């Protein structure tokens, strides 16, 4: 059987509920696709996400959780699943410290085997294996902001920062917003970042602006922050993991048109977007077959306003996206889909090299 085949998922309006082997095949496929995408630091952390996705499968938790919910819009595990893994990981060390030794658990689980339902010792043995795995991975919650100081110019009362926010977005995709910005201290402006003796911290105001704008284009964040007194924004980059197209998940019409029929069991196409707004982008461009630039979705008046903003702040925007498909046979499908959308994109196959 194809390792990615997950037949007959139960379907609700907003989420797929995968169970047993189907859940495991999905988890294997997705974690492999994330690893295959070779994500740079501008994307959400691929290794961490792949490990957390793996921990969602029955092979990891041994059936402690009956099903895996997948967001039908993004094709990624739902918010509930991500928070479940991070909450479990938070408790792992405590749980492992209190569980009896493995030999004792195995012996007790063996003695209670054969009943209609798994007994308490079988469950504890599964928990032992699950939490041992969790203790080896980074269980950071879906949302996290990190601010790093790049340099300080005391003479100009100016400091340069690198801000990174990871977030499971409302649309169900994982987003990393990376911002390079500078702040000039002024009596008249409220600081967005605070530089203490040994640490730099974002203010709630900055966090809120970035947090709330992750769903929208990098350009919006750039313009919003550029308009803030005391701040100079240099670069905004948003990397996304998803959407991931699997059977049962919403799919672009252009992609559906390239498939001979409904996506077969085992079909997977993971997409990884990069959206940049910065002064050093060579030229404006949109090479994203999945999502248009914001300005392309605005009416002429809105487009003119943004053109003026680009002129005023001296930045350009570029969107790109790479794809990972579940088999070499789907590489051509992916290229045709991109061509249909007027883009040329990097496509990797899970079984085979990059094309």
């Amino acid at each position, binding site marked *: 059987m194809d390792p990615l085949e997950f037949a007959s998922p139960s379907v609700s309006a907003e989420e797929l509920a995968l169970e047993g082997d189907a859940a495991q095949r999905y988890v294997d496929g997705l974690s492999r696709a994330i690893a295959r995408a070779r994500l740079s630091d501008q994307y959400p952390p691929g290794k961490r996400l792949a490990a957390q996705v793996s921990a969602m499968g029955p092979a990891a938790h041994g059936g402690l959780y009956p099903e895996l919910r997948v967001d039908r819009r993004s094709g990624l595990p739902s918010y509930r699943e991500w928070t479940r893994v991070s909450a479990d990981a938070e*408790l792992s060390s405590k749980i492992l410290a209190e569980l009896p030794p493995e030999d004792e658990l195995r012996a007790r689980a063996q003695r209670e085997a054969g009943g209609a339902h798994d007994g*308490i010792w079988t469950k504890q043995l599964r928990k032992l294996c699950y939490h041992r795995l969790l203790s080896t991975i980074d269980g950071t919650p879906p949302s996290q902001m990190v601010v790093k100081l790049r340099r300080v110019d005391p003479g100009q009362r100016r400091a340069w920062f690198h801000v990174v926010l990871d977030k499971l977005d*409302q649309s169900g995709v994982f987003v990393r917003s990376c911002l390079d910005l500078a702040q000039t201290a002024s009596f008249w402006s409220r600081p967005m970042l605070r530089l203490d003796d040994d640490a730099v911290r974002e203010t709630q105001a900055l966090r*809120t602006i970035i*947090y709330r704008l992750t769903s929208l284009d990098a350009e919006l964040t750039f313009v*919003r922050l550029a*308009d803030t007194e005391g701040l100079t924004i240099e670069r905004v980059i948003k990397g996304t993991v998803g959407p991931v197209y699997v059977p049962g998940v919403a799919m672009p019409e252009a992609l559906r048109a390239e498939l001979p029929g409904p996506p077969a069991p085992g079909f997977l196409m993971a997409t990884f977007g990069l959206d940049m707004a910065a002064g050093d982008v060579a030229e404006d461009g949109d090479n994203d077959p999945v999502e248009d630039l914001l300005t392309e979705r605005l009416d002429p008046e809105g487009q003119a306003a*943004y053109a003026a903003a680009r002129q005023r702040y001296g930045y350009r925007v570029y969107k790109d996206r790479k794809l990972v498909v579940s088999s070499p046979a789907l590489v051509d499908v992916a290229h045709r889909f991109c061509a249909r959308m007027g883009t040329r994109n990097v496509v990797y196959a899970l079984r085979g090299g990059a094309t």
Partner: protein
Amino acid sequence: MGDAIDVVEVLLTKDVPYAGESISVATLESAIEQERTRQDHQVKALQVLQHRNTEVSGSLAREVQQLGRVSQHLGQGRVNASVWGRFREAMARIPGFSSLAVTPQSVEEILRHQYEVSLVRVKEAAELADRLGMAEAELHDELERLNTKIIDSARNETLAAEHVLALQQERDRLELELESAIEPGPRTHEMQRNIDRLRRVMADHSMRLQLYHTAEGRLSRLQESTRLLIGTIGNLRNDVTAYATAASEKLDLVAGQIRAIGTAADASVVMLEMKRSLDAMAEALDQSTRFIADTQLYFRQSLPGLLDDLHVFDTQTRDVLQRNLELSQALEDERIARGVEFALLMQAEQEALPESSDA
């Protein structure tokens, strides 16, 4: 005469098939002490779980308070009410931002944060239920072990009684024969020797009879204590499982609502949805807290009493054991007599049983 000697020899050399390890005052004391140690360990584990229960209860209560504050804040529409907030909101209006009012903190973020913290608390409660489940399973194993020992003791008691009676019957016969002998001679000396040997073996088995009888009674009392512990832990586990499951289901609903809130989280209609989500979460956790408070009260009321009972029982059993030991040393004859009497009583009961059941 040859047959009579054979009967004596058979009785004296008979290997009575007692189950388990051989019993003595010391081994019985040791066995009971082991069982008591196991039970003490379980009670201590229960105390740890009680402490954990207090911790979980406290943290859940804090989360509920926090949720209540946020919910009230949102309900009164004070998220963006400050002068500075309104000023910044006005200043922040640029093309494309008309729907993105600036608030001190993203309500979506507040709700997500609260959800994530609450989820950890609910998982801690579920973990407590599992710990209680393990303790309950260990106590069931303990009960099984006690039952096996009680059954063994009861069987051994029957075997000892039968053997003591057989020995006594033969001793009585020989004593009668000795009394009726006209003149002392080698035969009477042989009879006296066998009487003494029978008496010695009777002393051994009547002591066993008494020890097995004592063991059965004392183990039964330990068994009762274990059942009490199982009942206490089982009830608590069921309660904690119920609230953890209910809270978990509510959190699932809240997770769906968080997703539904979308990016326009500051719109008034969304604020209402948000408040509804928070109220649902607060309600679930409030129920959980009440549950925990109730079970905690149950623990506080029942555990000290249970501990007192166990300690009283412990003292009483030690006294009984000591008294038995003194009696067995000072009044061996009396013990044998009691053993025989008891064995006869048992025999009478055994004989009466088929008649009762036939009737």
